[in-house]
């Protein structure tokens, strides 16, 4: 077996098992930590796919900022008692199972799982694929259609920030 294949399977097992443990772990702090491991494994996937910038941003934003805030909230609420997390409704599980089965059937029938790209890309193509420069040039180039969605997204984030400040202020006053 080739080294990329071995690394792929190690990372895949790590990502999937820790993603399962996010759901199965009783303790909310442990769930959050397993989610961090999932994020790190996905970041390493990005690196193997020559998307270095995406990998760094994945670790910085998800593992480094969002999950720290999650932990902060969990620790503040002190949810360590498992009783607080017991699910009340019983309808959720069967509905989730049916929806999941439908999703997997769709995936199988559309052959998205089977038609994986098998030919490795050329070295020259991969070289600059995921660098900051390439991503910046494609995001901000006037010839490509991605500048407008990017700016709209930034406005969306600004609205969210202002909304959060307004909500917090109202509580304080």
């Amino acid at each position, binding site marked *: 077996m080739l080294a990329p294949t071995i690394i792929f399977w190690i990372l895949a097992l790590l990502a999937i098992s820790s993603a399962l443990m996010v759901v199965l772990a009783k303790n909310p702090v442990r769930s959050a*930590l397993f989610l961090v491991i999932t994020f790190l494994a996905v970041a390493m996937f990005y690196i193997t796919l020559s998307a270095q910038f995406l990998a*760094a941003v994945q670790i910085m934003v998800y593992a480094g900022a969002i999950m720290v805030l999650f932990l902060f909230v969990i620790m503040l609420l002190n949810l360590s008692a498992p009783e607080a997390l017991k699910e009340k409704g019983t309808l959720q599980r069967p509905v989730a199972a049916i929806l999941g089965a439908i999703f997997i059937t769709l995936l199988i029938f559309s052959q998205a799982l089977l038609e994986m790209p098998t030919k490795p*890309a050329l070295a020259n193509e991969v070289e*600059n694929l995921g660098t900051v420069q390439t991503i910046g040039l494609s995001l901000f180039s006037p010839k490509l259609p991605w500048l407008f969605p990017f700016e709209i997204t930034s406005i969306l984030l600004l609205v969210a920030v202002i909304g959060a400040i307004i909500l917090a202020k109202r509580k304080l006053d």
Partner: protein
Amino acid sequence: MPDEITKYNFSFPIYWHGLYLPGAVPYVAIVCFIGFALAITPFLVWMERVVIAFIQDRSGPNRVGPRGLLQTIADGMKLFFKEDIRPKSVDVRIYYLAPVLAMIPALAGSAVLPIQFVYFHNLAGEVFKVPFTVGDVNIGLLYILAMSSLQVYGVVLAGWSSNNKYSLLGGLRASAQLISYELSMGLALLCVVVLAGSVKLSDIVQAQNIKPFGIDAMPDFLKGSVFSWFWLGSLGVPVILYTISMIAETNRAPFDLPEAESELVAGFHTEYTSMKFAMFFMGEYISMLTVCGLNAAVFWGGPLPPLNIWPLTIVPGAVWFITKIMLGIFFYIWMRGTLPRLRYDALMNLGWKRMLPLGLVWLFLLAGLNLLREPNDGPVQPNKDAVPQVQPTETTDALNESPTPARPIQTSARSYPAIPMRDPGITIDNPTTHFAPSRTGQGAITAKISR
């Protein structure tokens, strides 16, 4: 840099007994970095105690060894033999994991620091310049930021798993503080990225190897000197922002609220004893080394000598780099001996209301100034009139220009395989090379000198 290469006449051959030497650089660097970080920590502790004692006008350690130099070794031995006490109601696995998490990200972050440039020559006389790092990846700065953002987990989990209200308060403070100051830190570093046009650390160091502010009329000995580094090139403010936020990121005084001993006993590591406590201690010092190394590489010229004159230029770059790191550590200790601890609201006010807006304003200012640069996109190429460098995208042109077209991997020198002991002529088709970490090529042909 033709002048630099002729002065540095020493360069390694690219093959040595069939061993591909540039491919061995990352492995040597791993050993050197980890060994240096672990071996220098006792010295740093000693230095801190001596300097603090000098500031506070007392003797400091002076019993074990000359000037107390072996005191830290003795303390380390004592910690090693202490009983490992584990409180009853801790969350065992996370309690044991936390000291490891405090140390590993700091050590991992130092992997991309360009400590020194190493030169290699092939038989055709071409000289390759390879930074001595574990991996000179093209997301270097982002990688260090990512690792430093993971550092918070050690502190937070230690605070939570100890099941102690003081520890928990320390952990909560740490998470809030680190998230707040990461923003200012990132903004300060972004100012430099705007100036250098690259997030690769060796490119950032190269971009500082110019005459001050890029003015050609400046004398030659100022090229790459202390006046052309980015602390001055970014007009002074980002280096102050970075220095403040680097102290806050490593939880050192005056920002040591997570372990404020007058309020929280010892904060997040109250319940830790023996070697686990020592690991927190070492993690703190290693993260200090890493952030000071980033400071040295990004704002203070990295391995460049302070003046481009003869006796300074023959000193290896690693000596300058380590000197700059040590000056940073001295600054840490100086601040600890000088300033009282900030109150919590003052800390948050400083981070969010003073430093963040200032960093944003400065980023816009520098981006505006940067539009005056010619050409105003892409990496800064320091010396246009020097020997033409091989651009990353123009490897085919370089292949045509080369008088002796050797094996393709040597002329398109960006893609050194990371695996040594392999004939590079065949690795270009090797499917393993589409795996990114081994392909973030190190080095480019910088000059050709006749041998």
